[in-house]
């Protein structure tokens, strides 16, 4: 019956189409601009494709000749046709092993049994931007200049983003109170060193690189790249969410978000999404805004949203798709962003969470890919996607703006987009390098480690039997992804799964600035017993050491810091003194060791940028990390305190405690591989000479021995 209907429908369509084509006379066949546009657009598309074909046909021999002349004969000495590197940020070897034993990860088990599974030594400190910079450049941080998310300004003791610097346009002119910018923002990459895909690309080996951290701003090379961690949001921050609410509150979020009032109108509610600073009045603090309306239907537990000219309906507890928003700042000036709305509460109060406004990948106002068209290509193919470096809004969960489920929904939506990009890159890169980093592993472990432990301070109120198996599910998902990737690769493809570091519990906070204060290394202004953010009340004239960021400890060195007091000749003795006192520092509450190692930068780094490194790297023990306050240059009375935030797992500790993972579909002989070895290993496998400045050593990788690994449904 259904087949008959289909047949009839098909016949009807055919007859209809035939009537359209055959019946009307030529002059009458034009049926309005819709049809006209359709025909013209299609013709135009095919015409462009045809023109490009002709161009490509004639240019092809010259491109080949150019390659030969420059001796770029790729793959001549390659042992592999393709390398696929999946970066699972923060995948922990101990958890992996545990879940393999529990039978949750059949594909990783198979990789371990038929190929390689090792712990992968990480960097000092074991922080993602540091470790991934080392991964891509094959050098220690002394040569790539990334030591933390943050670096400090020696003149002001204030932090700045270590990976990139964004400044306004070089030229502008004034008209009254307005400043008209000439040209776009200037972005300067701070990471040094050359990513190994540049060497590969120069040798004629095509590379697709997706969301590897610290690739913003994207650098030019012969391949395609989508920038990852460190891409800012439209406000220029690393992610500022917005909670629009009818609740009156003067409270401010500690970090990562703003509260915006929702106004009650006659029949609806009105609010706005805060955007970047108005480029026509720089320095005034005037922000651009995009207004929106909420028309609620409490009975149906849903609301209709009007944003710009777009309208959509959300149920309670539902996210919108990515909504494009344009922040207008006068004729010809504006910024294109995308954000998602989440209907949090409908009655009696109305609350709407809005994600940080991401740079629109389809209309990027800042370059987020190389070439620029690559981010546009992905947006056209798959629709808008998160471009923010730290796209998963951990702050919103920390601040209880999102609950566990809403946060996970956000994470996995981003993850699904990333998977689509990966499989497209795999299809497009049948030869060469395909590298893709997934952040979900890192974010979910950060936020849900509390459910793995019996007595984590952040989950004491949740009965054990009610704790969801979020991290177990995460690893299972990743294993499933590996299974699907294995289906796409052949015997001459090298598959590597690497993580930049592992994970441990973050149950106790250590305020190192408080310890420095209590032990006479850091002085406060007269009458102060604590200091606000960024050393607000620190007396630099009497301070010998301070800390900011996650693991760095700095001496207040004379001639280096603006108000430095430590003489150069006292540096070594002071460092030794601090190391002796801090190493083995115990938590008085439990007697556990809070700091298991303090490392001298001169011993762990070498290279032209060592001067920018912290003087000491502090390695916290299992269960400990720098306190939230200490990271922000705050001095508190307490040295140790419970970590009550959802952000309950971490890796910014002693690097020896949090190695990453290395899985490979081939046997690797080396017993103690390190993340710094990945770049030289891949280059060697592609038959390229290794640059002399590399710190990593290539591993001995066996040739493909068995047929491709089968996949197992997990």
């Amino acid at each position: 019956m259904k087949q008959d209907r289909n047949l009839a429908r098909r016949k009807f369509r055919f007859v209809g189409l035939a009537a359209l084509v055959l019946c009307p006379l030529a002059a009458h066949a034009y049926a309005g601009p819709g049809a006209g546009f359709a025909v013209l657009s299609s013709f135009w598309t095919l015409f462009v494709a045809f023109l490009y074909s002709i161009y490509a046909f004639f240019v092809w021999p010259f491109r080949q000749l150019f390659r030969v002349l420059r001796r770029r004969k790729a793959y001549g000495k390659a042992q592999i046709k393709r390398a696929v590197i999946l970066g699972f940020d923060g995948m922990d070897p101990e958890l992996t092993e545990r879940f393999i034993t529990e039978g949750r990860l059949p594909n990783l088990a198979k990789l371990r049994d038929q190929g390689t599974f090792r712990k992968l030594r990480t960097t000092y400190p074991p922080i993602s931007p540091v470790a991934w910079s080392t991964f891509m450049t094959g050098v220690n941080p002394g040569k790539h200049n990334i030591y933390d998310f943050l670096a400090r300004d020696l003149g002001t003791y204030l932090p700045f983003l270590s990976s990139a610097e964004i400044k306004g346009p070089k030229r502008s002119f004034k008209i009254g109170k307005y400043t008209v910018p000439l040209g776009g923002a200037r972005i300067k990459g701070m990471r040094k060193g050359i990513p190994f895909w540049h060497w590969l690309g120069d040798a004629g080996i095509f590379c697709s690189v997706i969301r590897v951290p610290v690739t913003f701003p994207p650098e030019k090379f012969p391949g395609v790249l989508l920038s990852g961690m460190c891409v800012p949001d439209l406000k220029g921050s690393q992610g500022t969410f917005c909670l629009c609410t009818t609740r009156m509150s003067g409270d401010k979020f500690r970090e990562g978000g703003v509260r915006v009032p929702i106004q009650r109108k006659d029949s609806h509610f009105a609010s706005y999404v805060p955007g970047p600073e108005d480029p026509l009045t720089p320095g005034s603090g005037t922000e651009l805004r995009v207004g929106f309306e909420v028309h609620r239907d409490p009975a149906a537990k849903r609301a209709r949203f009007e944003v710009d000219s777009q309208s959509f309906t959300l149920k309670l507890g539902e996210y919108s798709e990515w909504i494009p928003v344009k922040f207008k700042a006068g004729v010809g000036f504006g910024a294109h962003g995308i954000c998602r709305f989440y209907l949090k509460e409908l009655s009696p109060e109305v609350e709407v969470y809005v994600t940080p406004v991401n740079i629109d990948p389809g209309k990027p106002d800042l370059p987020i890919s190389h070439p620029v068209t690559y981010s546009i290509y992905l947006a056209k193919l798959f629709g808008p996607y998160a471009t923010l470096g730290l796209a998963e809004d951990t702050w919103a969960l920390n601040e209880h703006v999102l609950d566990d489920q809403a946060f996970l929904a956000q994470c996995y939506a981003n993850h699904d987009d990333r998977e689509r990009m990966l499989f497209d890159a795999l299809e497009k890169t049948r030869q060469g390098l395909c590298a893709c980093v997934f952040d979900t592993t890192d974010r979910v472990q950060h936020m849900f480690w509390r459910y793995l432990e019996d007595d984590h301070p952040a989950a004491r109120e949740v009965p054990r039997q009610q704790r969801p198996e979020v991290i177990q599910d995460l690893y299972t998902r990743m294993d499933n992804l590996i299974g699907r990737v294995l289906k796409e690769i052949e015997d001459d493809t090298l598959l590597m799964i690497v993580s930049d570091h592992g994970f441990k519990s973050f149950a106790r906070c250590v305020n190192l600035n408080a310890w420095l204060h209590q032990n006479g290394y850091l002085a406060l202004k007269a009458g102060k017993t604590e200091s606000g953010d960024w050393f607000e009340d620190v007396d630099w004239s009497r301070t010998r050491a301070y800390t900011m960021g996650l693991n760095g400890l700095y001496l207040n060195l004379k001639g280096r810091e603006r108000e430095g007091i430590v003489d150069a000749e006292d540096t070594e003795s002071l460092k030794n003194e601090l190391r002796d006192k801090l190493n083995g520092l115990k938590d008085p509450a439990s007697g556990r060791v809070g700091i298991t190692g303090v490392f001298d930068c001169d011993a762990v780094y070498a290279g032209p940028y060592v001067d920018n490194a912290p003087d000491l790297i502090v390695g916290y023990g299992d269960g400990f990390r720098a306190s939230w306050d200490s990271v922000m240059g705050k001095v508190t009375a307490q040295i140790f305190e419970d970590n009550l935030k959802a952000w309950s797992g971490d890796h910014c500790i002693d690097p020896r405690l949090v190695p990453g993972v290395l899985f490979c579909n081939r046997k690797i002989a080396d017993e103690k591989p390190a993340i710094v070895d990945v770049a030289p290993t891949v280059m060697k496998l592609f038959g390229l000479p290794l640059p002399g400045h590399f710190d990593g050593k290539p591993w001995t990788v066996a040739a493909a021995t068995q047929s491709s690994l089968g996949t197992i449904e997990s």
Partner: protein
Amino acid sequence: MGSLGVNIPALIVLGISVVIGLLMVLVFAYTSDQKAIHVAKDHLKAHLLALRLFQDQIAVVLRAYGRILLATGRYLRLAFKPLLFVIVPLTFLIVQIDRYLGMTPIEAGRPFLVKARVAESVLNDATLLLPQGLETTAPAVHVPAENEIAWRVVALRDGDYLLNLHANSHLFSKSVKVGAGLPRLSPIRLRGRLWERIFVSGEPALAASDVVDAIEVQYPARDIAFAGFEWNWIWLFFVLSLVTGFIFKSVLGIEI
């Protein structure tokens, strides 16, 4: 040109184009799957970008060509769905407008052809009866192969005329407009053939007889001066409605 030097036909086409451009864009918005069209267009663009991004990889480029063709087909299918809703009314509208703008009336003093398609049995007997103000300038020409008779006629003065064809003791009439302006013109009068009559004739059917099939008056095609060019109205309408449609779609945020 009008009496004030205004190009009235051009203004009419412009007005029609604006109104129809807006109406069609609105119809398009409500009858098409806007999201699917947006996605189809985006996919097209993505595959075009793939040609450039992965230009050194022949297999990828060839696949991209294939996908461009597929995506073009998908886009055309989606874009033509609204056509089903508008094609009938718009076709009738265009046919009616064509009566006014497609041709000019006969100019007095300038010869024109009158043709009749008749049955073979009356081919040599049929005669043309002209009213005062019209006269033939040459003997009738018979084309037996096509059962056709042609007369060269000239109008002496402006006016609306009715000429008659006498065949088999019956009279078959046909209107002729001589003069200027924008009268409704019917270039042919047909017997039966409803479908063809709708599209090409503006007169009632000829009397039911099997001797005369059609009587045709060859009006000159009308050229409309616009933007320095002489246009057939349908081409001018095509261009102007596309332009206005483009403006309205942008203003109204409609995906075409």
